[in-house]
């Protein structure tokens, strides 16, 4: 594996609420190599989302440093962080977060709009991304006209359209039934096989088995790391009905 895409060193996150301080993360070191696929698991409140938000440049650590794709992002201003998110990171959320007034295609185009890309190019990229998630025949549907699984695939297409170096997903299957969830995971696995670096937060062990490594977080610390055997990963992929697509 090559140079790390994510390099966290001694990262801590503390929330101060009046006199009480909550340590959501305490001294986390994390390396994610390019082409890796990592699952982050752990009990509720252990700090998984906090970690993801920092990795995704949505939040800043209280302490420690973060090098993303070889570039230190500590101390970047809000707008610079926004640009970093726009160019380097694709985010998939538990509740999809599609804009209800925009069609699937327009939703997928949105990050490219903020990148300042011309209409023709971004349309081509968005169409490609929608085709990659198998929704080329649903481009002009509004989110309300799509199933939950399809909406999440639109969200994945949106995350992919800008060709980010890192794909992040926080409980991407949390709002889906198991079949649609496996579809999305199979999609991630296929993307990872093509070289995309993926980090998925989940507390579903079946979801975690799609990944190459499983990190467990407990009480703001990384408590353990386990490799997933290649065979098990293949089994997980085969179990997904959409898995043959990837």
């Amino acid at each position, binding site marked *: 594996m090559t140079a790390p895409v994510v390099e966290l060193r001694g990262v801590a996150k503390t929330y101060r609420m009046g006199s009480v301080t909550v340590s959501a993360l305490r001294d986390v070191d994390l390396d994610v190599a390019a082409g890796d696929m990592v699952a982050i698991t752990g009990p509720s409140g252990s700090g998984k989302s906090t970690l993801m938000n920092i990795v*995704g440049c949505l939040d800043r650590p209280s302490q420690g440093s973060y090098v993303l794709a070889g570039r230190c992002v500590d101390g970047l201003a809000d707008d610079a962080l926004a640009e970093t998110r726009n160019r380097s990171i694709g985010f998939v959320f538990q509740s999809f977060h599609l*804009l209800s*007034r925009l069609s699937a295609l327009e939703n997928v185009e949105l*990050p490219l709009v903020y990148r300042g890309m011309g209409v023709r190019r971004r349309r081509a990229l968005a169409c490609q991304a929608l085709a990659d998630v198998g929704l080329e025949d649903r481009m002009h549907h509004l989110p309300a006209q799509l199933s939950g699984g399809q909406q999440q695939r639109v969200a994945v297409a949106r995350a992919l359209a800008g060709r980010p170096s890192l794909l992040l997903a926080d409980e991407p299957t949390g709002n889906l039934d198991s079949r649609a969830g496996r579809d999305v995971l199979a999609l991630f696995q296929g993307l990872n096989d093509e070289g995309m670096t993926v980090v998925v937060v989940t507390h579903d062990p079946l979801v975690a088995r799609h990944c190459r490594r499983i990190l467990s977080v407990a009480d703001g610390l990384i408590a353990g790391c386990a490799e997933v055997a290649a065979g098990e990963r293949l089994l997980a992929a085969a179990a997904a009905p959409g898995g043959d697509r990837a």
Partner: protein
Amino acid sequence: MNLWESLRMAVLAIRTSVLRSFLTALGIIIGVATVIIVVALGQGARAAVAQRVESLGTNLVIAFPSPGSGVQFTAGMARSLKGRVPDVTAAMPVFSGRGAAVVWHTQNTQASLQGVSPQWLSMRGAHLAAGSFITSQQLAGRSRVAVVGQTVLTNLGLSPATAVGRQIFVGGTAFTIEGVLQPLGAGVGGQSQDSIVLMPYTTSQDILHTAYPSELYFQVAQAKDAALVVGTLDMIFSHTYPRPNAVNVASQDQLLSTLSSVNRTLTLTLGSVAAVSLLVGGIGIMNIMLVSVVERTREIGLRKAIGARRRDVLRQFLIEAVLLSGGGGMIGVAFGALATHLGGLLLKTPMAVSPVSAAVGLSFALAVGVVFGMWPAAQASRLDPIMALRRD
């Protein structure tokens, strides 16, 4: 995100809820429409006043006793003052009185009576539709002859061609119609001047039961002499009647400027009321935009999460506010123009929308959108994406 994209997003947001957007912009719509209507009314009134003052005649100076001063003019003063004031080319007394019944056959109508001299026609710049005007002989002979206005004629069921020579009763006294006036239109106060019966002022003294003219009219050769004549007359009257302001002397220009300054004050007052309603409209927009920012917190969070910078979000919401206020302004201009047009038809006076008032109203509306949209937009742009996404 370029301007075009922001504009598209704003249009989309406004289109999603047309009724709400319309209600939001209603304050601006009403404000701008009011500005347009008030200015058009003001200008229309000013034009009408100018036209009426001009319809008095040309280069006239009018003197009349101040109400309550007890001053009484005499008919002879017109002639003697004409001799004393240089530049006065003609002078006449005018006796006006209460209305009286005018009867022809079985028809009757009310008309205002005026006792005048033969110069009246030329001094007032009026024209005859038929017959002839009062002569000096008739004046000297206290003849019972009358020249009648169009309204009187119509009300009596006569036409100019058939009226001359007929006998009518004015206030119970028999008169012969000598002539018929062409329509004079509205007077300075807006009243009709065609419901009028003119007679020699010598005759009118018996009918009106007064020996004192209500006004003296003086004509000057050139408009520029009017001010000097007004000054001279003022001086003479203040010698004759040593009380302050016993007599009012005014040229047509002064009459016009007094009347139009009243008008201007009124327009300005109403205009400021309209401006205040524009401000209130702006507050309405700010209110709804603030609500909208709260409602769309998740949308804003998502946009920021996928790369919208502060200025992108700021611009999107600011454009939305300006679009609301500008659109409202445009509807307001259209609405005001329509109302002005209809009002003009209704009041039978031509009223035009001034392009300046439309431009000012519209720019004011846009400015209101920028000013009152700024705060909600700044609020939106400062949202923390994590917090915003978490909101349900």
